[in-house]
């Protein structure tokens, strides 16, 4: 990858701009998912979760949903960051500042990606921090957790860019998130283990890619899940590669960027 970067100052500048952008509006980008996570943990974890019998798994229901919430907000924050940044760039046409510069298409994607990855991981770690108010959660495999956080952020940052290129107005921008990403994430096991579902739905859930991503975060933290860490890691890598290549391709052909 390094030899593909011919303009490191340019990539770093674009990355800085993207990170500066979401930190400058932290009230809209960082704090809302932390507040909603705290509410989820209180309502589902403390109030309702204490009545769910999870003793056989070796940890509480609250400890089970913390990785799920981390994954869910990692997914949505990464997606929202790149989709809003790129779409606003197209809307105001200041995307030309980047398109006119000597950044390769890979470098453009990497620069925009940096913002999505940084915001996703910031929120994900923030949700984990919030969980300490309610319970103790440890990390069984720190490097695996970092791997999954980066891979998931890459997948959904790229998905956000693809959504931003496809959208013609602000309404279209959120369609993928509302009707596809969030439902698949919720069905992928944010709040429930697969073993709680009837057999046919358990089989069906294995076709949901979100399941492997959420399971990867959960396995990294609790060392307990319905599938193996290696399978989750492979699925995450394949999806990240696919989405990255597809996004670079769209930039290269200038899809809705060049007339």
């Amino acid at each position, binding site marked *: 990858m390094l030899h593909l970067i011919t303009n490191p100052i*340019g990539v770093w*500048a674009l990355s800085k701009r993207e990170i500066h952008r979401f930190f*400058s509006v932290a009230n809209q980008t960082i704090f809302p998912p932390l507040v909603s996570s705290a509410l989820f943990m209180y309502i589902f974890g403390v109030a309702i979760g204490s009545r769910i019998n999870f003793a056989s798994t070796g940890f509480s229901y609250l400890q089970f949903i913390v990785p799920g919430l981390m994954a869910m907000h990692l997914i949505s924050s990464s997606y929202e960051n790149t989709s809003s940044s790129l779409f*606003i760039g197209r809307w*105001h046409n*200041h995307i030309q500042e980047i398109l006119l510069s*000597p950044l390769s298409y890979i470098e453009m994607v990497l620069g925009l990606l940096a913002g999505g990855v940084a915001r996703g991981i910031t929120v994900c770690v923030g949700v984990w921090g919030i969980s300490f108010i309610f319970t103790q959660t440890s990390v069984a495999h720190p490097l695996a957790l970092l791997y999954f956080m980066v891979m998931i952020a890459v997948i959904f940052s790229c998905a956000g860019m693809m959504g931003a290129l496809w959208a013609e107005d602000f309404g279209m921008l959120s369609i993928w998130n509302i009707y596809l990403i969030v439902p698949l994430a919720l069905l992928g096991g944010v709040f429930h283990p697969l073993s709680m579902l009837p057999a046919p739905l358990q089989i069906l859930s294995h076709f949901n890619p979100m399941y492997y991503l959420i399971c990867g975060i959960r396995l990294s933290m609790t060392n307990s899940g319905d599938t193996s860490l290696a399978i989750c890691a492979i699925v995450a890598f394949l999806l990240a590669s696919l989405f990255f290549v597809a996004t670079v391709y769209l930039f290269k052909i200038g899809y809705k960027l*060049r*007339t």
Partner: protein
Amino acid sequence: MRNSETAISIKSLTKFYKKFQALNEVSFQVKRGDFFAFLGPNGAGKTTTINCLTGLSNYQSGEVKIFGYDVTSEYLHSRRLIGLCAQEFNFDPFLSIYNLLVYQAEYFGIPPLEAKNRANQLLERFNLSDKRNCKHRALSGGMKKRLLLCRALIHDPEILILDEPTAGCDLELKFLIWDYLAQLNREGKTIFLTTHYMEEAEKLCKTIGIINHGGMVRIGDKKQILQDKSLEEIFLEITGSE
């Protein structure tokens, strides 16, 4: 630079917007150090040509080179050589005008310290220093025009492309821009100007090209073109406008 004498070379450039042909086999060259006026009525293909030069538009056929570098296959080289002053105020709304210029310089690979120096120099040159921490929305129309110029010049390009730079400017700003463009041209910059003001082209430019209905209809040295007629008369004759 691969070809140091020909700044812009366009051969048989053809561009369609769906079924509408915006450019039809357009060919011309602009020499290094030239001050080139690219004239034509609205919809003639001026901005489309600029977009093809800068990589903002794809085109169906032809060849576009900047100092010998193909703008499609060698875009990393060609883009370093061009500064574009667009028609519209397309600035990042999240950034102060100072940060906007610094980031723009850094996108071109200019180290941060030098980028800051250049931003300060340009803001001072265009009397925008006291607005450096403002966002572009706080600027007047004239200030935004100046900011467009600052942004186009921040990486010290060899070619400056200006798409109607003085449209909507008051006289004072128009003269300031004219003086600055003439100075840049004297310093060796190649300037490619589109304008609807004939007196602007007549006063500033050395070479004139006129495009109409997507095709080049006249190109040549200003003195050759303007023999016993004004540019306005010639323009109206060629484009058939009334």
